[in-house]
């Protein structure tokens, strides 16, 4: 029974962290039989990595070798009709792409080559022809792009996971990015996720201990959410409003009248990519890291929302720590009841130094079985790694090793705690803090007094600013408080 509880927790955790963390063919962190089972359980996703990754790497070679015919060839291969979309992404290929994309968020255990290739997965699908993109715009906005917009660039500027992004200027002069979904892709993916016999079999034969149907339900819910761009537009609008006027956090505004199920229009943002940031000075990298850190925890404690897509490809950087956050397809909103025990855990462990209180909060949150026959100091010892950067004041440098340690601890099935610990479904997404945020800051080798910044944000401390960015943010908050009395931020429902 205990083992089953754990397996379910681990399974759901895995799915939500990366739809199928399972994908990671070579994970070194998992000991013993559990590791074997999980690795084999990843069969479906390993296929995605195998197929998808090499699919991605081989695509550009065609265009390179084609020389001057390259553009002609690209035009020939462009998706011309919804039938082309179905032929290219139907019968599981769209689902595999989604799995590959989700898996690419997971840092631990994926080799740099696999990460690189998985993140390029979406490049492997040819773009829509200008006519097909225009057709989607016409269907969604009621008029062709050259009437819906003052200016429309028919050449896409970027691939999105299930669509592509065009530049345009609205009729009232706003420069915008318009994300256009492939026609038919939502129906195709929904159809494939509506019949999960194959996925269930591939998971079940290899992971008999796991609640495969719970895994699949979670997967289906996540993917289905991302197929409806209206949800993404609402999420982004909420974040954009919440951070309006913030000194370093930017969220492109939404143009609601130009958003539909398959089109999302937002202000055009620009900036350097994560790969460029890695070449900037350490001081700049530290500032960018501080902004990302503030964004994650301000969103969680302030907006009670968490962007579950902490992917370096979704950030644009400018000097001075200014970061623009893109892509709000996967956002989790927390209720007060869901957030309260999380806050209590931090408070008891890091501020009050009250181990028994910490344990009770863990039980209240559903992380720890009540009455588990384990000494409290062992529980604290086990969990401490998650709070390592905020237990004490002082400057600390994030490392890849720390990010890996956090992830390993999450998947540590050998620990005596394992049988009594689980991750309730509403918190599963928070593992992306570990997998996304810490891994990212580790890659930046970011240094800061994280505890001091956290104290600014923790609602039970609300400490004074401890960095220049903190001072600037305090000014934003002061203005925000007076604004919010006039206009409460709207939290969109599910």
């Amino acid at each position: 029974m205990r083992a089953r509880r754990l397996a379910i927790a681990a399974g759901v955790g895995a799915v939500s962290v990366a739809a199928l963390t399972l994908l990671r063919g070579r994970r070194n962190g998992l000991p013993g039989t559990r590791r074997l089972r999980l690795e084999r359980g990843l069969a479906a996703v390993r296929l995605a990595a195998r197929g998808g990754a090499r699919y991605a790497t081989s695509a550009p070679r065609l265009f390179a070798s084609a020389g001057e015919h390259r553009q002609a060839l690209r035009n020939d291969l462009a998706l011309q009709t919804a039938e082309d979309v179905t032929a290219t992404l139907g019968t599981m290929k769209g689902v595999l792409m989604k799995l590959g994309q989700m898996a690419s968020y997971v840092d631990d255990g994926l080799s740099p080559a696999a990460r690189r290739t998985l993140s390029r997965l979406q490049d492997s699908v040819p773009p829509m022809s200008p006519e097909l993109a225009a057709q989607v715009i016409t269907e969604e906005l009621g008029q062709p792009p050259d009437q819906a917009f003052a200016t429309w660039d028919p050449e896409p500027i970027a691939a999105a996971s299930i669509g592509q992004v065009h530049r345009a200027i609205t009729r009232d002069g706003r420069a915008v990015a318009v994300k256009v979904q492939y026609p038919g892709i939502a129906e195709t993916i929904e159809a494939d996720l509506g019949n999960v016999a194959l996925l269930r079999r591939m998971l079940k034969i290899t992971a008999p201990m796991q609640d495969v149907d719970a895994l699949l339900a979670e997967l289906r819910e996540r993917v289905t959410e991302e197929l409806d761009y209206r949800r993404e537009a609402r999420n982004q609008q909420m974040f954009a409003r919440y951070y309006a006027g913030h000194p370093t956090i930017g969220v492109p505004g939404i143009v609601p009248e130009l958003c539909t199920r398959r089109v999302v229009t937002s202000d055009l943002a620009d900036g350097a990519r994560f790969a460029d940031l890695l070449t900037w000075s350490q001081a700049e990298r530290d500032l960018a890291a501080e902004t990302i850190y503030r964004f994650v925890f301000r969103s969680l404690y302030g907006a009670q929302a968490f962007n579950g897509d902490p992917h370096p490809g979704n950030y644009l950087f400018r000097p001075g720590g200014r970061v623009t956050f893109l892509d709000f397809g996967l956002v989790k909103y927390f209720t007060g009841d869901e957030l309260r025990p999380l806050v209590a855990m931090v408070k008891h462990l890091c501020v009050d130094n009250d181990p028994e209180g910490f344990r009770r909060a863990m039980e209240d949150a559903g992380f720890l079985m009540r009455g588990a026959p384990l000494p409290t100091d062992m529980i604290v010892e086990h969990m401490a790694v998650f709070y390592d950067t905020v237990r004490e004041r002082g400057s600390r440098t994030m490392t890849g090793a720390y990010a890996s340690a956090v992830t390993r601890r999450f998947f540590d099935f050998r620990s005596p705690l394992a049988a009594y610990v689980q991750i309730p479904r509403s918190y599963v997404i928070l593992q992306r803090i570990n997998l996304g945020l810490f891994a990212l800051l580790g890659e930046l080798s970011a240094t800061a007094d994280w505890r001091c910044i956290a104290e600014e944000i923790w609602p039970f401390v609300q400490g004074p600013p401890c960095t220049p960015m903190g001072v600037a943010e305090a000014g934003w908050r002061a203005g925000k408080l007076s604004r919010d009395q006039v206009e409460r931020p709207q939290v969109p429902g599910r």
Partner: protein
Amino acid sequence: MTTGSYADAAGLVERSAAAYAAAVPVTPQDDGFFGPGSVTWRVSMDLAAPVAGLRSLLIQALHPLAMAGVDQHSDWRTDPVGRLAATSAYEVTVTFGDRASATRAAQRVRAVHEHVRGVDPVTGQPYAAGDPALLLWVHAALVDSGLATSALFGTPLTAADADRYVAEMTIAAELLGVPHEMIPDSVAALDRYFDGVRADLRRTPAAGESMSYLLDPPGLDVDIAELWQDIRDAAVLALPGWAVQMYGYAEPPPLTAERRTEIRQALGVLDAVFLGEPGVLEARQRIIARMRSAGKKRADAT
């Protein structure tokens, strides 16, 4: 002999993929014997093509003389994966290659066939691989399988396109030396051919062993083996009733819509794996680009 005398099937996907990628021409001199507007190209590109391949082998093995030739002369037992990869590469060359490449490939096969002669231990009859009757049998099984599997698991052809496909494919048999007048050139003629040849068919021990091996090849990666179960079930589902009876397979349960979807999904995943192998995507795109531009030219002409 037992199935234990076969080499295992490790590398099936990788080697088939390599053979495929190498066989799709990069700079063809002409459109070959079929061309990008042909039904044959569409059938070859169909999602169900792997099922068609397996179903062809299941049927082909039921002719004792054809089976004896393979069993006694080819490297089928020592290198089954290499044999399958070479066969599919040949089909790809004939289908997508230019006329010179297709003709050369066929001449090589005919040269090999010259030496494949013997006596079938089961029926006691002499055989020769160059015998037009045997070549026609192999051809007919392939064509019939393309029709059957695309109808069940892929994109079904219209009746007119099905006839066109059978007629287009006659050239493939001619290339190997079958006189034109022997070759069925319509679905009805193909059906008549099968009715006429039925009495010659039986499941010999060699056929039983070979097909047991193919239906459950040892040595596949665990994920590929899981997918192979669906390919195998699909191939058996697509067999004519007489073939199922000769093999003594349990009558497969009727194909529900859900099961069909599941099989198509398995084919889709397998195809994604195949596309992930080096060179396959480029090869596939070379074909699609030719088909697209042929379609455009047709549209412009009308």
